[in-house]
């Protein structure tokens, strides 16, 4: 109420400046003037108060999120040296990034590029065609905008470069670098986690005996610390001393080891990761499935729709927004995988199972902090790139639903 009064007074004061100036000054006028000044100050403090009260929080947030980002950017452009009495950061420009792309760390980060084979060009050509079609369809659509075009060109270029990297390192004598290995963990892992999580969720929303018990059981892997999961899977995949040794012996595979082969080791890590994170998908999807309205399903059932038709046309659209958000959260988290490769395989054989976080960690533990920050920044770019794609898809979906 006071606030309203003050604003009215101020409005009146602003509307009648000449009247105030022309009138002779008497006591009443003086009082009026003083009252108006107070009102102006009051309004100003009202306006400022909100900003000032939230300022400490804003500063704290900026300090905790923006400052480390800027500081680590500087560190990625510097070399760390120990000097008498402490340490020294020497600015080296883009040297740490140069090492990652064309220097001594190139093979480690991007992988070993093999000469192109017919298969390489076939797959890359197909990807380029698909990206060209995607871009052309947008350009021919009625909703072209400058921002949208820039975004899609960047997306096309980014995916094109990643496709180039994959087709040259995936076969024909090539070797995946830590960037590609991370993408394999993220996309293969999330794909299986989502499918399995959805299947289990579908199962436990049915009216089956013991479903409550199994809901709890299915959640257990998520409760275990990742290092614990890693040690457990290391033990399980040990063919000579692990609990499955008799089985391997029986199958004549006693001299087989998962970790002697790059894809065997990556598969072992993926199995551990899928085992641990499927429950996260499962529990959220159970909630999504149970919160969908029952009426459309009942109506479809009365109309004679079968289970697949109900899922495809009613359930799937209903859980899609939740699914997209779920995948986005897992995507951001999955890029940071480090515990499983560190404990299960020590990043081996060779560097076959090293993720980007593990790559950064190796540099960090040698106090090669500049190189470590450069790897971490490349990870940030990748996470941001794929998160932006997903966020845009979610936004697009939301607009279509309006």
């Amino acid at each position: 109420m006071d606030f309203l009064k003050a604003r009215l007074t101020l409005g009146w004061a602003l509307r009648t400046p000449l009247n105030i100036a022309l009138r002779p000054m008497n006591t009443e006028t003086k009082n009026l003037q003083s009252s108006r000044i107070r009102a102006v100050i009051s309004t100003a403090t009202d306006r400022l108060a909100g900003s000032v009260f939230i300022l400490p929080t804003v500063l704290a947030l900026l300090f905790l999120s923006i400052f480390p980002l800027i500081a680590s950017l500087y560190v990625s452009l510097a070399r760390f040296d120990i000097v008498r009495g402490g340490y020294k950061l020497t600015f080296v420009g883009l040297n740490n990034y140069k090492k990652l792309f064309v220097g001594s760390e190139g093979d480690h980060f991007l992988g070993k590029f093999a000469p192109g084979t017919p298969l390489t060009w076939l797959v890359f050509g197909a990807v380029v065609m698909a990206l060209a079609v995607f871009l052309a369809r947008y350009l021919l659509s009625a909703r072209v905008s400058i921002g949208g075009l820039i975004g899609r060109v960047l997306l096309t270029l980014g995916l094109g470069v990643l496709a180039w990297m994959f087709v040259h390192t995936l076969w024909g004598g090539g070797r995946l670098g830590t960037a590609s290995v991370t993408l394999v963990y993220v996309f293969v892992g999330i794909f299986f986690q989502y499918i399995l999580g959805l299947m289990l969720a579908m199962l436990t929303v049915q009216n089956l005996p013991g479903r409550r018990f199994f809901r709890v059981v299915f959640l257990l892997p998520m409760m275990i610390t990742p290092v614990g999961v890693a040690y457990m899977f290391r033990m399980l995949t040990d063919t000579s001393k692990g609990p499955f040794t008799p089985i391997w012996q029986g199958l004549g595979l006693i001299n087989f080891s998962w970790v002697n082969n790059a894809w065997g080791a990556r598969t072992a890590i993926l199995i551990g990761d899928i085992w641990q994170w499927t429950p996260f998908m499962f529990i959220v999807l159970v909630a999504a499935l149970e919160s969908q309205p029952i009426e459309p399903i009942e109506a479809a059932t009365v109309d004679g729709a079968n289970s697949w038709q109900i899922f495809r046309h009613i359930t799937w659209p209903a859980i899609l927004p939740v699914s997209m958000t779920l995948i986005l959260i897992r995507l951001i988290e999955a890029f940071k995988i480090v515990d499983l490769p560190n404990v299960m395989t020590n990043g081996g054989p060779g560097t076959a199972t090293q993720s980007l976080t593990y790559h950064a960690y190796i540099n960090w533990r040698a106090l090669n902090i500049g190189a470590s920050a450069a790897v971490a920044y490349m990870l940030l770019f990748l996470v941001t790139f794929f998160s932006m794609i997903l966020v845009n898809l979610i936004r697009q979906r939301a607009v279509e639903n309006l």
Partner: protein
Amino acid sequence: MNSKNMLLKLLSLMIIGGVLLAACGAPATQPPAATEAPATTEAPTAAATAPSAATEAPAGKMYDGVTINILTFVGPQVAEPLQRRGPDFTALTGATVNIITVPNSELYQKVLTDATSGTNAYDGYLFAPAWIVDFAPAGLIEDLTPYVKKDKDLQWDDVAPFFRDFNSYDGKIYSIPLDGDMHMVYYRIDSLQEAGLEPPKTWDDYLAVAKALNGKDLNGDGTPDYGSCISKAPGQQSYWWIWSIAAPYIQSKGSSQGAFFNTKDMTPLVNNDAFKRALEVYKETGLYGPPDETNQGVGDSRGLFISGRCALTMDWGDIGTLAIDKQNSKVIDKVGAEINPGSKEVLDWDTGKLVPCDGTTCPYAIDGVNHAPFASFGGWAGAVNAAVDQKKKDAAYAFFSYMAQPAQSNADVTVGKTGYNPFRISQFTNKQAWIDAGFSQTAADNYLGGIEASLDSPNMVADLRIPKNHEYIQVELDRILAEYIAGDLTTDEAAQQLYDSWETITNDASRDEQLKFYKGTLGQK
């Protein structure tokens, strides 16, 4: 009402503004400036000679109320004796000892982060003495020379000369050895005798013996066993094994020649036929080892050897003491130890080719074989944080001294679970302690003889002790070796990549400075 409200608002704004101004204006706690000279180290007080007092059980507790935090790698080995003897030290001196452990791979950065950031959460470090070259010039660890001089109970002269030297830098002592490290080859006496084979003298012999015994049942359990067990997991100990194999191919003219870099120009001695041959030998040992050896650390190899599953292995002194463990060992009195195998061909540094051993090329050869035993890692050693207060420095030094004194050390080195190996002259001469620990006379002679032969070798190779040695060895060599073992790199590619990456580190760190350090560690001017 209006005035009161306004006054309150103004007051709030002033308070918040004041707080913000105060926060901005308050002097922040400064980390040590990069170029700031370290505080002058005070001359050690009488308290610094505490170890003498500690073992003599003084009437008064000299370090009552002092708590020291010692950082080392996660046990059970190495940390175990510290944890076990900590309470005894407390009873003697009054100082409370906290042992903090971190994974071995994180120890280096943990020490440096703690010291360079000014956190100084640790008063002492039990680490690799090769790291002294990073810590001592930066003034991060205390010069222990004055402490050692006053400490008669430490019996510094009894420490083997190599370990005295390896724990010093620029003529000053910076760490106290609790462990002596030397690689040796261990073999199964019974298995070799049964097969009519001799213990390997060269690395070619090693491969031949491993091949001959691979797949044989070595422990009588009906399961085929392995010819060789040398761990190959990335991030573990591979970078040390490879240098034990490479050393006799590269260095032949005495310890001062060096085996890592060319002392003319600091170029790495890796892109040549000698190092390539070592790579091939190391990789071939995997053919006669367990299937998952590429993911095994030294603990796995030791476990396999003492359970009787391996004919040969390479290790520090630990196998000798683990093999007499009545509870776990199946190879008691069946283990022989000898100086690391050598080579009949050595590197011609000018051409990069291997040439046959003769009187000129291999002046220290034994029966035509050039041995170059590798003192990898150099043994665990205790250093004191230079930035903590004097009382804590004294107590930390006293604790390391207490651990290293013969009364404690002579017992600890005979027990396998400690991870400590002999480093005192008296530990080699007094064999009774070993016999009391469970060695037979023959086993004690054999085990200690192997270490002594390595330590006495005029062609011994010390571990790399130059700044950034962690990056040269434990990052770049480790990664490239892992990729080579996995088959991702050919021998030539691995040698070339290692050469390039080491050159990058040298150039970044200043070639002249690195060369100066390197020559200094070899005793060259």
